[in-house]
């Protein structure tokens, strides 16, 4: 129980007045940043690094990690209220979260997300405290073949989630995959589909795509239809209905485990966690048809998973010095600015520092919960603001948010373009979430396959010969066979005709 005494020692340091104040400031700025579309956790932390220059290292990192997990939560708020995900992990939340908001249950969705996030976050921090170094070793066993099969599994699950029509779903998914190819190919340095535009060399930014396809398209379809503007739904209670309590808490439990495990893998995206959790919940539900029409489990599971994920992703950072997400990489940069060298020795060379941060994460998560339960009700009232007043301001916020990513108006133009595409996708029932999620996973899918082949001594077989990727490959094949089989059984022609799946 050495870690316990070290943790208590950490609490001593984290509970100093300055540190608590900066923790609260960090969490609040994080929420603000998460709520403003475009400013995700990455730019949020990056923007505020200069602000921390004058602070003690511990205080600075406490504040920056606060921004990190605070903004993860803030992103949920926009997903639920205005159907615009702030970061990739919240894309899935839009599906049912926004439906709940339309039924006047935004408060419930946000409340459940707050509780789920708290549980997921705390369990992850507990894992970090007691099992950190042990678990970190598991993470490094994920090489390119393992990533590739994990991504493939994620994509297969996505197919299972596609709305009414398989063909529309597939178009949306492949569209996203194709978009992810734009820019410089990291494997060969070849420049693809940039049409001579230097701005496209680095590819399209996720946030630009997500705000365009989700946010702007939503504004356009509402603005186009004035009747939709005038009747905000009545607000119902903050808590789930009684019959929803058990399934919801089960979802939170499953989401925690799933997000935690996937979060341990350095470089894995939180979107994978939330996607897998959503599809797990849909599989387990008695009545899967509720999903997509405001199922509370569809918010609880993924939101818990992505917070457990972001907590767990700190394990490879602290124990091995490996940044597991772009945000973590920014925090890593901040370590260096504050004279700390990240690396495997960090835990042993600066234990006071690390434990104070871990302790502050308990505090920060608690602060988030305390803030958000009462605030969920306040946020839900945003839905009562007349849309005619809300939408011009939202439009403006989307523009500014997108601009801040690269300080470029070009990005804002691309966002508007995707807004128009998204408007039509919505109109003709194409699942937008499929495009955005495959876009996130697509780039990694390609590079990890090419990397697998490069490190392999026996070609594509390597995917089956390594224990973890072998298991995942078999799982993928099984799912594929099962879904084809069940489709045949239902005597539905699977590809050609446009049917309900």
């Amino acid at each position: 129980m050495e870690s316990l005494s070290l943790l208590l020692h950490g609490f001593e340091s984290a509970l100093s007045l300055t540190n608590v104040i900066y923790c609260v400031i960090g969490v609040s700025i994080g929420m603000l940043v998460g709520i403003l579309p475009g400013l995700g956790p990455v730019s949020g932390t990056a923007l505020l690094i200069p602000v921390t220059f004058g602070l003690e290292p511990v205080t600075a990192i406490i504040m920056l990690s606060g921004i990190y997990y605070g903004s993860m939560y803030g992103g949920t708020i926009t997903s639920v209220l205005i159907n615009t995900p702030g970061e990739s992990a919240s894309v899935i939340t839009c599906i049912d979260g926004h439906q709940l908001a339309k039924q006047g249950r935004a408060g419930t969705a946000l409340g459940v997300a707050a509780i789920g996030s708290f549980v997921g976050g705390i369990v992850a921090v507990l894992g970090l405290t007691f099992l950190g170094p042990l678990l970190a070793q598991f993470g490094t066993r994920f090489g390119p073949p393992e990533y590739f099969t994990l991504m493939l599994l994620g994509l297969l699950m996505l197919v299972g989630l596609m709305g009414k029509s398989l063909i529309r779903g597939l178009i949306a998914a492949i569209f996203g995959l194709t978009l992810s190819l734009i820019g410089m190919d990291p494997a060969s340095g070849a420049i693809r589909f940039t049409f001579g535009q230097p701005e496209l060399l680095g590819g399209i930014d996720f946030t630009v795509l997500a705000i365009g396809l989700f946010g702007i398209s939503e504004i356009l379809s509402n603005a186009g239809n004035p009747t939709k503007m005038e009747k905000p739904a009545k607000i119902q209670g903050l808590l789930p209905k009684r019959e929803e309590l058990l399934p919801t808490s089960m979802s939170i439990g499953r989401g925690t485990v799933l997000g935690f495990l996937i979060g341990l893998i350095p470089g894995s995206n939180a979107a994978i966690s939330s996607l897998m959790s959503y599809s797990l919940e849909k599989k387990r539900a008695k009545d899967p048809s509720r999903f997509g029409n405001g199922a509370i489990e569809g918010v609880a599971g993924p939101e818990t998973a992505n917070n457990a994920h972001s907590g767990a992703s700190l394990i490879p950072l602290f124990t091995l010095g490996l940044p597991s997400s772009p945000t973590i990489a920014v925090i890593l940069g901040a370590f260096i600015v504050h004279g700390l060298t990240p690396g495997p020795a960090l835990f042993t060379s600066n234990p006071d520092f690390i434990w104070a941060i871990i302790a502050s994460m308990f505090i920060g998560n608690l602060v988030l919960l305390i803030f958000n339960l009462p605030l969920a009700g306040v946020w839900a009232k945003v839905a009562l603001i007349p849309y005619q007043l809300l939408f011009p301001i939202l439009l403006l916020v989307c523009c500014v948010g997108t601009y801040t990513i690269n300080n470029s108006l070009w990005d804002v133009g691309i966002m508007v373009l995707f807004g128009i595409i998204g408007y039509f996708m919505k109109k003709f029932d194409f699942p937008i979430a499929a495009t955005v999620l495959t876009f996130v996973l697509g780039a990694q899918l390609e590079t990890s396959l090419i990397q697998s082949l490069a490190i392999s001594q026996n070609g594509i077989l390597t995917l089956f010969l390594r224990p973890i990727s072998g298991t995942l490959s078999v799982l993928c094949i099984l799912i594929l066979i099962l879904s084809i089989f069940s489709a045949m059984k239902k005597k539905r022609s699977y590809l050609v005709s446009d049917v309900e799946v």
Partner: protein
Amino acid sequence: MKKWKAEVWFGLVFLIFSLTFFIQSLTLSYSGADGLGPGFFPLWLSGILIFLSLCYIYNTFKSEESQSEPMPRGTELKNIVFVLASLLIYLGVVPLLGFVLSSTIFLFALLYRYYRWHLNIGISVGASLFLFWIFAKVLSVTLPVNEFGW
């Protein structure tokens, strides 16, 4: 007859998109040092997308009834075009007039129909200044500004 037309058009957009990518990916090398070149994924993905868009267009032609809404027309179309036009003009104006002034005009234009002008000016100026304060001052983001710094 009118109903499926919009969907066919949208299918055509995907078809053109995938054809463009398909043709471009022919110029990239299909195989690389370890099997896959930069052209492998683009070729297959855009190829599949071509097939899918053709299926989609075929389907919409075939099916008589359409579950989705028709193309926007009338007031709806006007509203959307108005919003988009304001947005594009805003993007053109913002590097010249600076964030606060152009945002105020932008908001004023969009709110014009719903609020009386004095209330509208209040909302537009207030919201623009507030956003400017949050982004430029609190978060210290560099926003496009005019020569006076706002």
